[in-house]
């Protein structure tokens, strides 16, 4: 737990405040620190100010200058090793052009699926659940 809280925060990008809040709570319960953004533009600003993020977790459809897929590409360009988690009710991965290695989860999100994805990314221990 102590080791995990020292880690850089997970950036959650989601325009629905309720869903964003709940995701942040779920990740906090898993011992992860989080930082929130309501759209891609805000997220880019957050990435500019933070030294690092341990993962990007983003919705696709959001108001603003770009959607979540474009944001994920930007993040991959900045930090190729940054784990990417894409969440949406609209698209499925076959439609999109997700960056390589990005994980897609469909809304509404299943908590076990989220835990498996985070464990695979090494953000939480596989035994935590």
């Amino acid at each position, binding site marked *: 737990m102590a080791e995990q809280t020292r880690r850089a925060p997970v950036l959650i990008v989601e*325009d*629905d*405040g*309720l*869903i*964003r*809040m*709940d995701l942040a*709570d*779920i990740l906090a319960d898993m011992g992860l620190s989080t930082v929130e953004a*309501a*759209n891609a533009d805000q997220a880019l600003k957050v990435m500019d100010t933070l030294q690092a993020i341990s993962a990007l977790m983003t919705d696709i459809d959001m*108001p*603003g200058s770009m959607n979540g897929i474009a944001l994920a590409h930007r993040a991959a360009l900045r930090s190729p090793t940054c784990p990417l988690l894409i969440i949406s*009710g*609209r698209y499925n991965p076959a439609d999109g052009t997700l960056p390589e290695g990005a994980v897609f989860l*469909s*809304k*509404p*999100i299943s908590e076990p699926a989220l835990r498996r994805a985070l464990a695979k990314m090494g953000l939480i221990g596989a035994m935590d659940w």
Partner: protein
Amino acid sequence: MFPANPDCGKLFAEMDWSSTPLGQREDWSVELKTLTNVMLGSLQPMLIVWGPKQTTLYNDGYAAMCGHRHPAAFGGSFHALWHDIWDAVEPIITDAYQGRGTSMDDIEFTMHRNGYPEETHFAFSYTPVRDPWGTVLGMFCACTEITSQVMVRRAERTQRERFRQVFELSPGGIAMLVGPDHVFDYANEEYDAMIGVGRDIIGKTVAEAVSEVVRQGFIDILDGVYRTGESFIARGLPIQLNRGPDGEMQRRLIDLVYQAMRHEDGTISGILVQARDVTEIRAEEASRELLSHELGHRLKNQLAMVQAIASQTLRNAPDIASARQRLSERLAVLSAAHDTILEGGRGTSTVRQLVQQMTDLHDDPVAPRFVTSGPNLKIGSRPSLSLSLILHELATNAVKHGALSVPGGSVELHWRVVLPGADGFEMIWAERGGPVVAEPRVRGSGSRLISAGLNGTNDGHVEMSFLPEGLRCVVTADLESFQKEH
């Protein structure tokens, strides 16, 4: 004596010819003797009209055409036989007597030769018969029955007519092109409508009648079908046609079939074109697909929202019983907000409707505790769900801890479009006359749901101030996204 014509042969043999203008048979000319022998030996209907008195002789075949006039007409005058249609017969018999033959392709008779009235058709030729010096002695006529040919032709015509009707009634466009240059031979109304009503195409080649298709490659395709006999079949093919009211170009989508038509010997005679304008059908299909995709998307987002509400409710509830009650209240509020969206049709919820739903639930109609005012602003469906929830949580909190928890407390609720840019929405909830409030040390799920703000809006904020006179909550958002239908 005349086995081919027993009836007329008997009449001929028994007739007292000396009492007729022809006189005794022994005195007849070689020509008349020869012709009567030919006539009575033949199965083909034949007629002889002889001498200046136009004495008439015929065989059994011809007798059938005379109906009840036979046998009286045998040996009588030609006029006596056909007096009722003499106007038509007189010119041709006169012509024959003047040395001019006539042929008639199709004369119709009703005959009873099979025991019932029967339509028959015959072709006639009236041939003048002359003596060696050129004088016309009489007229010889051989008739050919053409009933079966006429019937076949009629059946063909009927079938063609039927095909034509089928083509006319066909919901698709049909045209027939003939020859290697693809000349329009036929086009039904639907085809005309498809290429543009009022274009004169029959008798013209496709290249001149519908010239805009040349550069789109359709003539090459027609040439290919004409050359190879292989059909061309395409669905949803884009085509530009000068079909507008003033002949202006329009883009359409058509289903198209070109099929080679062949002569009896197998060579290609032309091309049958079947075309259907599917522009509107395709557009409908696309919009239906979009709509079902959109519905699926909305459903998933709303499930995600419910999931978040349920999760937040459970996370912050003191016990399961109160969690269950709060959750069911919150879902009821969402459901009512949904009703408003559906009642009014797409995107026609208004802020006033949502405020009304809240006061219906939490205000006392006898002693009202709410003062509300604001314009009848339209609100998009996503923000409307959030706003309903925020109003519900604010009211619930006021009833439990705030101005509505004591007699005399009140809530002022105002909303407006923020000037001067008129590009922002603002709603202010201000409580008065309640117990003195202080910011709670632990925020409950209600205040967390409120702080989540207006879903689907840009630049949305919620500011809660715990002022001495009561809670003040300001909800703001960019107006365009607030009203936008997502």
